[in-house]
């Protein structure tokens, strides 16, 4: 039987080394480029007509946009409009990466911590820049929660610092772990079909039905994880915008 982890293997498609740094074009790079291309083509096609009564494609993008906007407004507050392009780009890119990974023979880029951590680090650095841009040096007070006794300040400062620095880690781990778990489960169930099919064709029906359900569920998880990534980016952004 094949290894269920084989699908996450990085394959070098175009070897390239510049000054000792490995800049090869791998299947992960291809998958990420395709996701970006899919996102751009989808947005262009969906917003081409812009009719008052939207068609299927246009309403799909409108529903997503309104959902993300209401989330952002609920978390960040009323001056959310200028952060909308950033948050929506993050959402649509993660969503496209997740959904592209669901296609047979494709590579799911978001199942690699290197990819998700890069995304989380971009979000983290951007939010820090926004925080220092809005509040200057006063932004450091995000590391000191209000209303604590003086004796507790050093301990709370250290805990807050750890909590603050762990944000990109937990953000990336959550997305990658969910994707890896889902893809491994699909692969193992697919192996069950073949194994039980060797015994009897009738017996393989049960894992086949289960696999069909699980694949539907995984598409839902792909959407949900992109949404959770976005919600958490919004929550972290709200600290940078509305300093307590």
């Amino acid at each position, binding site marked *: 039987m094949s290894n269920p982890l084989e699908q996450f293997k990085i394959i070098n498609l175009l070897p390239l080394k510049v000054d000792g740094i490995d800049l090869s074009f791998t299947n992960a790079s291809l998958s990420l480029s395709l996701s970006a291309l899919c996102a751009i083509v989808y947005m262009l096609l969906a917003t081409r007509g812009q009719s008052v009564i939207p068609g299927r494609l246009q309403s799909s993008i409108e529903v997503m946009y309104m959902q993300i906007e209401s989330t952002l407004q609920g978390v960040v507050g009323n001056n959310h409009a200028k952060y909308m392009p950033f948050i929506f780009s993050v959402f649509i890119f993660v969503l496209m990466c997740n959904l592209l990974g669901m296609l047979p023979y494709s590579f799911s880029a978001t199942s690699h911590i290197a990819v998700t951590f890069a995304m989380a680090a971009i979000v983290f650095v951007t939010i820090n820049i926004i925080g220092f841009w809005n509040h200057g040096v006063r932004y450091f007070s995000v590391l000191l929660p209000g209303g604590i006794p003086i004796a507790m300040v050093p301990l709370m400062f250290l805990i807050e610092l750890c909590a*603050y620095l762990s944000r990109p880690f937990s953000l990336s781990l959550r997305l990658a772990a969910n994707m890896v778990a889902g893809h491994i489960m699909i692969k193992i169930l697919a192996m069950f079909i073949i194994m039980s099919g060797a015994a009897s064709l009738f017996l393989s029906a049960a894992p086949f039905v289960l696999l069909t359900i699980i694949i539907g569920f995984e598409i839902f998880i792909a959407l949900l994880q992109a949404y959770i990534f976005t919600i958490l980016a919004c929550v972290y952004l709200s600290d940078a915008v509305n300093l307590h």
Partner: protein
Amino acid sequence: MVDKKNKLTELEVRIKAARSKFDFQPKKPMYSGNVGLHLVGDLVGGLAVGAILGYNLDGLMNTKPLFMFILVVLGICGGFYNFYKYEMNPRSRKLDE
């Protein structure tokens, strides 16, 4: 005349039935079932930050297990604290309910 009125009321009933089929029902947000996974992500993230920071600080100052130990404990506390803050934030909590 009466027949026409009957037809109209019949049509109205049918329109209402068709409308209720597509009526938008505000659903529970999708997030609520995932609180456990959220906690796991926060805890492992905190632990990872503590371990990485501690390991590197120890390497820098040659104090092998000291900072690793302190920062792993602080990292776990930080992970819990992150989760606590997320759940206590009235704005993000609204999304959970």
